[in-house]
Each structure stands twice: as structure tokens, then as C-alpha cells.
């Protein structure tokens, strides 16, 4: 297996992991240059993107002939997120009505499948937002008009996600659909609407 980061080849024996996900984690944690993040992954010559969360687990080490990582600075990634964040949040919002309908109509198996995927995206987005504010030095507590501060919005979002987990444990699917529809949806809309303002604060 040939591994390289930004054109610099790496010794294969230094990289741990039996599948692509573990290998990428090891590379990200232990081998990336400081203040850089993975921007693109080329697997056997082709761009690799995860259609589903954790799809990289399905690619075993023996299937990998070449793995090329192209990195970007944290600032580049943050700018990319600020540019594309509203679209990301909009597509997450688009998926919510279907999930709530499935829960309300009792198709719990399919609803949970979509819901878990949504939650994973939500956690990634929140973690990305926190990183972006740190990297770009955006004031956490500054108020954005009627939308309040990012700090208060993220705090409220954390409360909603804890509430969702508790309701999920109780298998109260109607209430879960309620919280998704009536509490999380407006919160994500507000967050989406804050991103252009956050972007304008970056120089």
C-alpha cells in the first residue's frame, strides 16, 4: 500500500488500522502536519466520499493499493464550512419532515435508520461550528440581531439533543417527532441564518 500526505510518501508500517476509517483516524491524529485537516482523500486513484456514515469501515486494509491525502489549513476548511454551512443545514432540515412523519405513522425501523444518520450529521455540524469559531476567532457570545448569540444557540441545541436521547430511550416516538418538528427545526433554522453573519465577521 502506498500512502502519501500532500505528496510526501509515508512508511506503511507506521500507520495503524485494519480498515480505511481506522487508518484515516490514525493519520489524522498522529501524522498530519500541525494546523492542517484532511481536505480530500484519494483511494486507489479515486476521490473517496462517504455516502453513508462510517462507510470507510467497509474498506479493508487489503483493498487499499494507494491512499493519498490532500490537506488544507484549518482556516481553509473553516471558510469552506462558512460558505457551505447554510446548504448543509438546509439539507439536514429537508430530511426532518420525512423522519417525523415516519415516527408518527409508526414506521419506527425506517424512521430510526434516517434519524440516526441525521443525528450523526448534527453532531458533526455542531462540532464543526465549534471548531470554526475557535479557528476563525469568531466571538462566541456576540449577539446576531434577534437570533441571539451563537453561545446561547449552541447551549439550547445541546439541551434539545439531550432531551432527544432521553425520549429515544423511553421509545416515545410521537414525542420524539414533536421535539424534532417543533423544537429542533426552528433551532437549526436559526443556526443556518446566523452563518452569513458569522462569515461577515471573518477577515
Amino acid at each position, binding site marked *: 500500500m502506498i500512502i502519501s500526505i500532500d505528496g510526501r510518501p509515508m512508511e506503511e508500517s507506521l500507520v495503524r488500522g485494519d480498515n480505511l476509517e481506522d487508518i484515516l483516524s490514525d493519520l489524522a491524529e498522529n501524522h498530519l502536519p500541525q494546523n492542517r485537516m484532511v481536505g480530500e482523500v484519494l483511494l486507489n486513484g479515486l476521490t473517496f466520499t462517504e455516502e453513508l456514515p462510517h462507510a470507510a469501515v467497509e474498506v479493508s486494509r487489503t483493498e487499499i493499493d494507494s491512499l493519498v491525502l490532500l490537506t488544507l489549513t484549518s482556516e481553509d476548511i473553516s471558510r469552506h464550512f462558512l460558505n457551505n454551512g447554510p446548504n448543509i443545514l438546509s439539507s439536514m432540515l429537508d430530511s426532518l419532515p420525512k423522519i417525523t412523519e415516519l415516527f408518527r405513522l409508526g414506521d419506527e425501523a425506517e424512521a430510526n435508520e434516517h434519524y440516526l444518520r441525521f443525528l450523526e450529521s448534527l453532531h458533526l455540524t455542531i462540532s464543526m461550528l465549534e471548531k470554526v469559531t475557535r479557528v476563525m476567532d469568531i466571538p462566541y457570545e456576540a449577539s446576531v440581531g434577534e437570533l441571539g448569540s451563537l453561545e446561547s444557540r449552541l447551549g439550547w441545541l445541546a439541551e434539545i439533543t439531550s432531551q432527544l436521547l432521553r425520549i429515544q430511550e423511553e421509545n416515545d416516538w410521537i414525542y420524539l417527532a*414533536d421535539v424534532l*418538528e417543533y423544537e429542533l427545526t426552528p433551532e437549526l433554522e436559526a443556526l443556518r441564518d446566523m452563518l452569513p453573519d458569522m462569515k461577515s465577521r471573518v477577515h
Partner: protein
Amino acid sequence: MVDLFERNLNNLLELDPELAARVRMASVPDQALILPARSGRPTLTVKGISLHSRFDPVAEAETLLKSHMITEAGGKGLVPALFGLGLGYQALALAGSFELVLVIEPDPGMVKLAFSHLDFTQALPRLRFLTAPSAFEQYPAALLVPHPPSVRLHRTAFRLWTDQLEARRPAAELNKFLMDLPGWEELLVGFDSAQPVDLLGLVRAVHRGTGPLSEGETLILLLHELTKTGR
């Protein structure tokens, strides 16, 4: 002034006196808790589980009307058979769109609770409460519409009703097919017109080879085979 429960029950009394008496005597379900929804309407939890939206139960019931299941029922001319009344939001929404709605509620105490909180007086003429699966025989072909939280409260009963409807489906489909044929009544000459014809029973009997076939029976069997291969 007569309270809501009495007004609902008086209307039911005219339509189904036996059920009205059972509802009057019933106890409301254990651990049933009425809460105000965010919209101000009453909502219900049983054993801590929500039976309706805690925010807007009326809007939630309206989404059921737009579901694939209900549009399919409407398109095929099937009668919705709602399993689980809860407080009645879904039943009332369905009664606004269908001439006839069958309601299966295994617990008369739940009907009592619903009658105490929502107004059924306008909708009752369109609602038929079923208490035993055999009651399906009196009504046109139905599509079982589960109220999911109620199904969780009465899983065994739900399976029983589902099995009954499934067993009835081929006969209902065949009857509908025959009734749509021009001159179908001529095929049934010799049958007692006052009694519903058990076409499925007839076909099953024929397959077991019991007795010679009349011309009408032969035609019915042939049509049955045609509908099976045409499906």
C-alpha cells in the same frame, strides 16, 4: 347544561346502545394522563408514552390524511378501519374525509376518556365502533389504519384484527371484481339474494372437490382464477 361526555354518549346511544352502555360502565385506562398540548388542546399519555402530539394533536391527525396509506384507501374505495382511538383526533380527521370510518378500540374505557374531552357529536354518524373482528363482515372492504401508540398498548388485539382482515381480503376483492362486471347478478342466480355470498368459501369448497358445480359456480370459479392470474 349537559356535559361533553353525556352529549357524545347520547348520540352514541341512538346509534349503538350496547356500546353506549359499556362505555358508561367502563373505567378510564390505568395511568392515562390528560395534558394540555402547546396548542391548548388536550393530549394524552398512557404509561408515560404519548398517544398524540404534545404540541399540536389536530395538525398531527391532519398529516395522517395526507399519508400514502389514506390516499390509497381513498383511491381504492376502501373504508379506513382505524385501530386505536386514543383521544379521537385521528378518528375525527378521518370522519371529515370519509363517509364511513370503522374504529377499533379494544378498551371501552378509552372511548369514555375520548368522549370526555373531544366533541364527537357531528362525526358519530360516520363512525362505527367495532368490538369483535367478525363485525368486519357487515361492512365494505376495509383498510386497517393503525394508530401506532395504541398498537403498542394492544399488540395482541392488533394481530388478531390484522389476521381477520387479511383472511377477508381475497373474498372482498373477488366480490368487488364481480360487482364491477356488467350483468354480474345473473351469475348468482340460485343464491339467496338476501344473504351475502361467501365466494371464497365456495371456491375453497370447489377446490376440495365437494359436490358437482352449477353453471353459476363454474363461472365464479373461472372468474376467481382469472382475477388471481390477472393480479
